Structures are given as C-alpha cells and as structure tokens.
C-alpha cells in the first residue's frame, strides 16, 4: 500500500525540475551538436551539410588569432587574478585584524554582484583620459606625468609588448574573478590548525617562510581546484568583453566564446550564422573537456581526494 502512494509524490517533487532541465539543458546540448552539422541561419531551416562548418573553421583566418587570444586571456587572468590575486588577498586578510580583513574581502565581492552593465560603465570612466578618467586623474594628482591609454594596441612599455587594451580586459575580468578563489582559500587557511603556524614560528621561520612552507602546501588542493574550475569559467566568459571592447579594436580582444556569440547574434557582417556559431560552441566544449581531463591527469585529483585534509610534509 505504501508503495502506491510513494510513486506519485516522487513525481510531484521531481517533475518540475525534470521538465525544465530536459527542455532548456539536455535538449539544447543535443540541438547544438545537430545544428553545427547544418547551415541554419535566421530562417531556422534544417539542411544537413555534414562537417562543412568545421572545414570552414579550419580555413577561417581569424580562428587561429582568436584561439591565441583565448589562451592568452585565460592563462593571464587566471595566473594574475583568479589564483594569484586570490592567494594574496586570502593570505593577507587572514593575517590582519579579523574585522578589517572581512571588510577588504567584502569590497572584492562587490564587482561580482554588480550588474555587468554598471560595472562596465565604471571601468570605462576609470580608464578615460585626463582630466575625467579616475586612474589618470589619480596619477596626475600624485604628480606622476604618465598617461594610461584606453583602447589602443600600443604596447604598455618597450620592454612589455602587451597592448593597453589587453591590460584593461584582464583587469576588468580579474577584479570579478579574484573573489571566487579568495573565499575558498580564506576558508582553507582558516581551517589550518594554529599549532602548525605556531610551530613554524617557534622554529624561527619568517612570515614569508611560514607562507611558503606551511600555508601554501596545506592549501594545495583548494588551489588546484580553483585553477581547474576557473579555467573553465574563463574559457566560456565573454559578457564583460562584449560590453567593454566588443572584441575590438578589430579582433584584438575577441575570444572564442565571444566569436561564437558574434557569429550567431551580431548585427553586422555575416549575422545570424547559427550553424557556424554552434560549431564554434561545440569546439569550445571540446577545449573545455580537454582542459578538464588534462587537469584531472596532471594534478592527480583522485589521489588528492584520498589524502587527509591536513597533513604535514
């Protein structure tokens, strides 16, 4: 008897979620793959063309440039902010007065919850020329006679051949990205028993040595996790770049995800190439899969998961 009542209630609980996930998650995954084998445009007609879109991608003269942009963007933002700045923030905020540290971390949370459109307005003004732009105004105010440039391909310095526009694209995304790692690393650092830090101090370790030989090894697993996870997030992020530079000037800051969006939905040059956009999206998923598998193998996640949370090496 009990069984007969069990089954219907189970459906009441599960059905809404099942329908939505099937309709807007599972079905789109399959459809994307199928659309990439057609020549669908805004008329939404199905005409099978086999691998034509993928051949087109091989001949696309922008594809290699955009691929290089994507790897550069993901690697630099990840190293400098999503992991690098996150580590700096979490280590420093846990080494000062607790309330003050929490306030600094809260400030870094703001960019993440700010609507992207408003966030981009602020950056546009921050990097505007003197006397309006915040950064240039600050520099001049401090007596530094140096003009930060906005959307140019001019290199930052003779010894650093990085175009200015890339500096800003990385900063815009990095200031959002750092908070994810910051929160996870902070929790991990707070979980380290005070004895370990004290023991290092008693042995005469300096603060930097304590960080290098005690804290960093103990939060290795969160660091690897954030690296892997944020690689995928960065690979597929494009909203800020769309609003900030729209991939420009030219294709200088166009990344793979944005290219897929542009091909499918942009209002200029070859608009509504849904099929080509879908093929680009499929390639993005494949790149993501390769990255995940590589991380899984290289970092030996399985072994790490078996290890105790805290160990002393």
């Amino acid at each position, binding site marked *: 008897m009990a069984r007969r009542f069990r089954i219907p209630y189970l459906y009441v609980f599960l059905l*809404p979620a099942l329908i939505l*996930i099937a309709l807007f*998650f599972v079905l789109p995954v399959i459809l994307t793959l199928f659309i990439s084998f057609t020549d669908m445009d805004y008329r939404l007609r199905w005409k099978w063309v086999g691998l034509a879109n993928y051949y087109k991608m091989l001949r696309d003269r922008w594809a290699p440039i955009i691929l290089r942009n994507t790897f550069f963007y993901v690697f630099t933002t990840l190293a400098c902010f999503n992991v690098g700045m996150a580590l700096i923030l979490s280590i420093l905020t846990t080494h000062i007065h607790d309330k003050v540290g929490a306030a600094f971390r809260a*400030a870094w949370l703001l960019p993440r919850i700010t609507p992207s459109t408003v966030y981009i307005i602020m950056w546009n003004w921050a990097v505007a020329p003197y006397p309006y732009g915040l950064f240039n105004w600050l520099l001049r105010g401090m007596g530094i006679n140096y003009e930060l440039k906005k959307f140019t391909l001019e290199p930052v310095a003779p010894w650093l051949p990085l175009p200015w526009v890339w500096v800003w694209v990385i900063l815009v995304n990095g200031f959002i990205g750092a908070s994810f790692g910051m929160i996870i690393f902070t929790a991990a650092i707070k979980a380290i028993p005070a004895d370990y830090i004290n023991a290092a101090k008693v042995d005469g370790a300096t603060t930097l040595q304590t960080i290098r030989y005690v804290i960093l090894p103990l939060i290795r697993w969160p660091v690897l996790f954030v690296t892997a996870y944020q690689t995928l997030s960065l690979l597929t992020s494009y909203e800020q770049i769309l609003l900030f530079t729209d991939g420009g000037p030219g294709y200088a800051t166009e990344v793979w995800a944005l290219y897929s969006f542009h091909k499918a939905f942009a209002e200029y040059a070859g608009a509504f190439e849904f099929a080509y*956009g879908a093929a680009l999206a499929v390639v993005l998923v494949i790149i993501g899969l390769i990255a995940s598998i590589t991380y899984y193998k290289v970092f030996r996640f399985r072994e790490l998961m078996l290890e105790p949370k805290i160990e002393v090496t």
Partner: protein
Amino acid sequence: MARPIDYLKMSVPYIILTIVTAPIVLMYAMLFIASCSRTVYGLIPDQITLENWRFVITGYISPPGTSGLAKYPNVYLVTLNTFLLAITVAALEMTISSLAAYALSRYSFRGRSAFLSLTLVLHSFPSITLLIAIFYILKVLGLFDTLWGVILVKVSLDLPLGIWIMKGFFDGIPWDVEMSALVDGCTRLQAWWKVIMPNVKGGLASVMIFSFLSGWSEYIYILTFIVSEEKWTLSRLVAAMIGEWRFVDYGQLAAMGVFYMIPVVLFFLFAQKYLLRITIASKGTV
C-alpha cells in the same frame, strides 16, 4: 626596542591590501559622485546637481542627440519588468529546486545518482554553448520575445546550483523530524511544507538572493531573446545608453547606474553571509 619595527612590519599587509582594493572602492565612489554632479574630474564634482536624477520624476530618458523627441521606454516600466523577472525567477527557483532537492535527499529511486551527476555535468555547460539552441527552442515554443521565455531559461540554467545548495540543507535534517510528522498522518507533501521547509530557511534565503540578483542583473538573455522595447529590463536600458557613447549624458548614465544598483547594495549591506555562501556554490561568470 623592537617595537617600532614590529609596527612597520604589521602595517605591510594593510598597505598592500589598501592599494589593490582602492580601485574598487574609488570606482563606486566615482559612480556615486558623478550621479550628483554636472561633470566630474576624477573624484572632484564640478557642480553638484540633482538634474541627472530627473528621470525618477519624469520616468523618461531621452537618447542623447535627439533633443528629447525620441524616448527610451518608461524607466518605471523597465524597472517593473526587471523586478518581475527577478522575483519570478527567485520564486520559481526556490520552489522547484527545493522540491527536487527534497526528493533527491529523501527518496531512493532508480536513476537518483544518475540525475545528481547529470545536474553536475550540465552545470559545466555554460550559457554560451547553449544560447543558439535555446534561441531555437524559444522560437518553436512561441516564447521568443517574452519575459516568460527568459524567466524559464534563467530558472533552468540556475537549477543545478539551487538543487545542490538545497540538498545540502535537507541532508542536514535528521529523519526523525519528518518521521514524526508522517506518523501523525501528514502526507509527504504536507510534511515537506510544514515540517521540513521551516528548517531550511538559511538555504532558501541563499537560493532566493542568488536567483534574485542573477535575474536582476541578467543581460545576455535579454539582449538575445527580447526584441520589443516595452519588455526591456534595466540592463538592456543601461546598455543602450552606453551604446550612444559619442553623445552620452554621463551624469544621467551614472544616476541610472546607481538606481540600478540599489537592490544589489541592500543585499550587500544586509545579507552578506548569504552572498558569501552563494559565491562559493556558484560558478560565477568569471
């Protein structure tokens, strides 16, 4: 004797943190100052004025360079759209994810673990890879250019996260609690609603805040799936104002930005512990 040196060393983290955090704080300060002044040089307002906030009274913003003839849709209509979108997304997300999470936490049925890992795998399919197919599905369902379409897509794509957050909370409640309710003659649905749900308010608040803010800020789906101006949300309006960058009225744009930020700031000030929780759980855009 060593004291002064200690103080110097102790101040190093503060100095570094202040320098790296300054851009964030100053940018928000600049936005606020710019919204109340005619022109702003860095952080110095040229002339304090409330002129930029006129849209709060008139309800209208004119695209620059049209001398007030052309108009963007009414600001309050756009705000209402944004609010309805966000609140509906939040309500659906809370209901559907806690229903599903309850089943996944309490029932054992065939395909349970498959469903759980499916939600995890799907969570790693980001919106860009599905955007084109979802466009197609919305067209076929007749939901293209409707806010309902955007709402359903948003709820679905945030569902895995909501389910995992809520499942964690349900798992933490001992069986005995609802067993006694069932023994007293409640149905499973009644037990869920009357006994279990009051115990997971923290999780519900997290899901609510996350999905409200996610709906409130949504830009890409509105840009892609909404054509009619009367269905715009604030993100689309602000983006349209930025788009006129050559002639843009900076003060008015800043005021609009501050206006748009109000709920975000409220949650930031009063619900930070929930925000921290959802930041860990969500994958975030970047």
